C-alpha cells in the first residue's frame, strides 16, 4: 500500500495530533470542553511573562538530563536511574549550600561542581552494578532511584533538618550567596541557561565528532564486537553513565539552587522519567531534543492552569506526553506499518 505524498509529509506530526485527539476524548468523557481546556493550557504556558519564564525554568533541568541520556542511549544503556541521579545532584549542591561558607563567586561554582560529582558517582554505581555485577541497569537504576528519595528523606528529617525540627518539608532555605541569580523575580536563572547551552554543545560535539562518541555508538550497537575492536566496553559504559549522571546532577543542582531554595522532599518528581520520553520521541535527532523538551514543559506547565479551570486531575499532561510517545513508537514510522513511502533512506542523526 502506498500513502499519498501529502499525507506522508505530515505523517511525523501524526503522533501529536493523535495524542491531542485521545486526550480530547478523555476531556469530553469528564465533561470538559477540549477547546477551552487547550486554551487554558496555552494561557497557562504563555499567558504572562512569569508563566513563560516558569516554562523555561522547568525546561532547563529537563534538557540537562535529556542531554545526558543521549550519551547513555547511544551506548545502548537504559538509564532509568536518571531520576536518582538528578536527586543526588540536588543533594550534592545542598551539601555545599549547607556546609560551606564562602563568597558567592566561589560558592556557586562549588555547588554546581558538587551536584555534578554526586550525580556522576550515583550513576557510576548503576554502571558498576551492570558491568561488574551483571545487574541490568533498569533494575539497578530503579532501586537506586528509590534509595535516593529515601536518602533525601533521611537527610531532611535527620542531619539536615531545620532548627525547628524535621517535618519532611525540606531543609531550611539556603544562604543567599549560593542561590543562582534569577531573572526578574522568576525561578529562571540565566546562568543555568548559559551552562545548558555549553553542556548541550559539548554533548553534540562528543556524539558527532569525537572518538569517544564513536566508541559509544559501537558499544551501543554491539558490545561484543566493540570490545574486540578495542573499545573498553565496561569502562566506556561506566564513563557514559557518569557523564550522564553529571549532567542530570547539574539539572538537580539547578533545581535546588534556583527553582527551589532548599532541598525538598521530592526534588525531581519524575523529570528523569520525562527526559527518557523526550529522548525516545526525538529518536536521536539531536536538535529535536530541546524542542521536544520545550513542548513537554509547555504541556505540563499549561496543565496547571488547566487543572485550576477544569478541576480535572493534573495527570492529563502526563497522559498527553505519554500518548504522544506511544503513538510515535506505534505509528510514527509509516514503513513499519506496511505502507510504502517515497523516501527510503533512513535518517539516524
Amino acid at each position, binding site marked *: 500500500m502506498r500513502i499519498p505524498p501529502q499525507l506522508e509529509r505530515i505523517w511525523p506530526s501524526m503522533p501529536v495530533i493523535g495524542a491531542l485527539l485521545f486526550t480530547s476524548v*478523555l476531556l469530553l468523557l469528564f465533561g470538559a470542553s477540549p477547546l477551552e481546556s487547550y486554551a487554558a493550557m496555552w494561557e497557562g504556558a504563555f499567558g504572562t511573562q512569569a508563566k513563560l519564564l516558569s516554562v523555561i525554568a522547568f525546561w532547563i533541568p529537563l534538557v540537562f538530563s535529556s542531554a545526558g541520556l543521549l550519551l547513555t542511549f547511544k551506548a545502548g544503556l*537504559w538509564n*532509568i536511574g536518571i531520576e536518582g541521579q538528578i536527586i543526588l545532584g540536588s543533594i550534592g549542591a545542598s551539601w555545599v549550600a549547607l556546609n560551606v561558607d564562602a563568597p558567592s563567586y566561589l560558592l556557586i561554582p562549588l555547588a554546581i561542581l558538587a551536584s555534578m560529582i554526586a550525580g556522576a558517582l550515583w550513576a557510576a554505581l548503576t554502571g558498576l*552494578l551492570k558491568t*561488574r*555485577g*551483571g*545487574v*541490568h541497569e*533498569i*533494575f*539497578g537504576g*530503579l*532501586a*537506586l532511584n*528509590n*534509595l535516593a528519595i*529515601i536518602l533525601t*528523606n*533521611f537527610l531532611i*528529617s*535527620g542531619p539536615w533538618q531545620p532548627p525547628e525540627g524535621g517535618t519532611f518539608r525540606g531543609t531550611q532555605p539556603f544562604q543567599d550567596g549560593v542561590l543562582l541569580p534569577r531573572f526578574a523575580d522568576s525561578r529562571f536563572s540565566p546562568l543555568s541557561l548559559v551552562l545548558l547551552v555549553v553542556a548541550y554543545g559539548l554533548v553534540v560535539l562528543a556524539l558527532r565528532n569525537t572518538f569517544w562518541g564513536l566508541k559509544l555508538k559501537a558499544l551501543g550497537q554491539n558490545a561484543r564486537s566493540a570490545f574486540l575492536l578495542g573499545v573498553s566496553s565496561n569502562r566506556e559504559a561506566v564513563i557514559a553513565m557518569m557523564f550522564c549522571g553529571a549532567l542530570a546532577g547539574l539539572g538537580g543542582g539547578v533545581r535546588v539552587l534556583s527553582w527551589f531554595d532548599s532541598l525538598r522532599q521530592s526534588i525531581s518528581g519524575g523529570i528523569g*522519567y520525562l527526559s*527518557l*520520553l523526550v529522548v*525516545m520521541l526525538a529518536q536521536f535527532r539531536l536538535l529535536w531534543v530541546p524542542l521536544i523538551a520545550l513542548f513537554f514543559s509547555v504541556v505540563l506547565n499549561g496543565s496547571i492552569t488547566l487543572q485550576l479551570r477544569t478541576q*480535572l*486531575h493534573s*495527570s*492529563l499532561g*502526563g*497522559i498527553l506526553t*505519554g*500518548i504522544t*510517545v*506511544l503513538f510515535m*513508537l*506505534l505509528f510514527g*514510522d509509516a514503513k*513499519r*506499518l506496511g505502507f510504502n513511502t517515497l523516501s527510503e533512506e533512513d535518517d539516524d542523526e
Partner: protein
Amino acid sequence: MSDELIGIIASILLQASPLIIAVCGETLTERVGVVNLSLDGSMLLSAMTGFIAAYKTGNLAFGFLMAAAVGAFFALIVALASIRLRQSQVAVGFVLTLLGDDLSAFLGQNFTRLPGPTVQKLAIPGLADIPILGPILFQQNLIVYFAILLTFATWWWLFKSRPGLRLRSVGERPEAAFARGVDVNRVRYLYTLIGGGLVGVAGAAYSLGVKIGWSEGHTRGLGWIALAIVIFGGWSPIRGALGAILFGATKALATVLQRTFPEVSVVAFNALPWLLMILVLLVVSSDITDRLIALSPRPMQRPLRRLLKVSPPKALGTELVEG
C-alpha cells in the same frame, strides 16, 4: 510456633499473593521471549479498573475480569509493537508504564478511597484445622488459593506439558521452534496476552483483596518488583513465588525492626527492600558468584550453581527473524 508468628507468616503470604500472580504472568510472557516491561503501569490501571468495575456492579468476578482485560490490552500493545512493528520492547513497555500510572490517576480520580466490595476469607473445611499449616495456608482468601494453585499450574504447564514445551522452545530458539512446526508469533501473542491478563488479575487482587480500595499510585513500584523477582526466580514460577514471599518477608521485617531498634532512623528501614533487590540480583547474575562457586568443593559446584545462578531464555527480547 507461636500464634503471632503463624499470623505474620499468613499475612506475608497474603501480601505476596498478587505479586506471585504477576510473577507467574510475566514468567509466561518472558518464557516466549517477550519482555512486557509495562507491568507497573498495567497493574495500576487494572487495579483501578478492577476496583471501579466491582464497585459499580457489586460483582467481584466482573472486577477481576475487567482488570484482566486491561492487563491483556497493555500486553497486546507490547506484543503488536514488538512482533509486528519490530519496535523495542523496552521502549514501548516503559512508555506504557508511565502512561498506565497517569491514566489510572486520571480515570480513577473520582473513586479515591471509596469503600467497595472485597474478597473475603474462606477457610477450607477440614484442612483449615491442621495445626500451623491450617492457619497459614487454608484460612486465607481466594486470592491466596489462586496464587498457590497458579504457581504449581504454571510450573506444570511450563515444564511438564506439551504446549509448555512448545512455549519454552519459542523463547529459546524461535527459528528452531518454527522448524518444528510451532507458529512462533501466535504462541508469542497468546502467552503475552495470558501473561498480561494475569498481571491485570494481580492488580485487581490488590484493590479488591490485599490493599483494598483505590487511590492514586495505589500499587506503584510493585510492578517493577515483580519484574525483578522474575529474574531472581530464574524464570521459574515456583522459585519466583518464593522470591515474592521473601520480598513480603523483608517488608514485614522492616516494620518489626523499627520496633526492635528504635534508635535507628525510621527512614533507614524503608531502604531494606531496595537493598535486598540489588543484592539478590547481584547474587544471581554476578561473575563474582561464579568465582565464589568455583572455590567450593567440586561436587558442591553444580548444586550451588543451580541454586544461585539463573540464565534467561536465550531469545528474550529478540525478534523472530523470519525465513
